[in-house]
């Protein structure tokens, strides 16, 4: 066993390999490991955030669902009310219309009756005049007769 310059040679080799490792080997490996650690941390964070988002979204969706249900109920309610109103209105209108028709018909009937009465009166008057003429067998003053006849007709 001799101690010799191998010690120096080994020291030089050692220094070289440490330098090489420091320059070209260690930094890239550490960089990659760090980058991966960061990526994993980011991923975990993102998962956390997504979970929170999911909870929020679920809350919001149930809330919206509730609102929508309420709205729908309100709409149905008001629609029902409106329908009842429309039916009522229609019924009212129909009734009014019917009354009006009845009233119109009544009025027409009255008119007809009046007209019939008038005609009847006129004919009765004419008959009376013709009868009277025949009875008197002479022509009476037309104008005086007219007046008398119309008076008579209105009294009938």
């Amino acid at each position, binding site marked *: *066993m*001799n*101690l*010799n*310059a*191998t*010690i*120096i*040679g*080994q*020291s030089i*080799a*050692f*220094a*070289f*390999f*440490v330098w*090489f*490792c*420091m320059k*070209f*080997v*260690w930094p*890239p*490996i*550490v960089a*990659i*490991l760090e*980058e*991966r650690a960061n*990526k994993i941390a980011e991923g975990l964070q993102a998962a956390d955030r997504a979970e929170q988002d999911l909870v929020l979204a679920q809350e919001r969706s149930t809330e919206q669902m509730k609102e929508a249900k309420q709205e729908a109920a309100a709409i149905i309610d008001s629609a029902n009310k409106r329908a009842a109103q429309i039916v009522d209105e229609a019924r009212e209108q129909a009734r009014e219309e019917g009354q009006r028709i009845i009233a119109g018909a009544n009025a027409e009937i009255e008119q007809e009756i009046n007209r019939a009465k008038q005609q009847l009166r006129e004919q009765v008057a004419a008959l009376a005049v013709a009868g009277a003429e025949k009875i008197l067998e002479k022509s009476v003053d037309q104008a005086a007769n007219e007046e008398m006849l119309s008076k008579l007709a209105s009294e009938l």
Partner: protein
Amino acid sequence: MASAEHAETPQTATEYVSHHLTNLTFGKIDDHWAFAHSPEEAAEMGFWAINVDSMLMSVLLGVLFVGLFKFVITRMTVEAPKGKSWQNVIEMIVEMVQDSIKNSFHARNEMIGPLALTIFVWIFMMNAMDLVPVDWIPLLAQTVMGDSHAYFRAVPTTDLNITLGFAVSVFFLIIFYSIKVKGLGGFLGEFAFQPFGKYAIPLNLLLELPGFLAKPVSLALRLYGNFFAGETIFLVIALLGYWQLPLHFGWAVFHILVVSLQAYLFMMLTIVYLDQAHTDH
């Protein structure tokens, strides 16, 4: 598997084991540069010689380490890797290193991560060479060199020079960062004024300095001792004929633990020592 087959004269068991544990040393002998042909020649070369086998294995494994990591990095994805892939392996190692640093290192230093990663993976790979059957790598080296007697020590961490190379580098880093963070006065003050205050400076030095100097020595010797002993047992097992197969398996399984444990320990202690260098205590 015994290398006795390709030796010209029959080897004794001691020769076989010590041949495998002798480095291929290149240095200056008798005024010319050459490989040492015996441990004695290697000793004669003195300090200015180099263990070619340890350095070659060390650098090859280091290149394999950065090459593999660089290759995987080019096709790394931010998305989690699917199924069995090298990206998984590398991420696991890097995360283990990051965790160790997070738990034990409380200052901020750009270098501590790459340093710990390099120490762990590189030493792990060097240690793992002892799981390769003991004759394969030497045989390959001998074939390439065309010398069937060539020494080749396949596990770099069984060479004290290699483990000391690590430990001394770490030691200098400890001194560098101690002075950088605490100043020269603060750094030296830790030896002089602790634990008994300023009136017992010699006693303090006596207590603190050995502990400080023991750090690199214990780092280097722990790793070297574990693998020198482990490799010796692998070599002894390799001498046992067919009995080596179950025994080698058992010892190798146990050594899978030792390989990773010693690599982890070296990394951990480096992190702890450097943490101490960064903090006042």
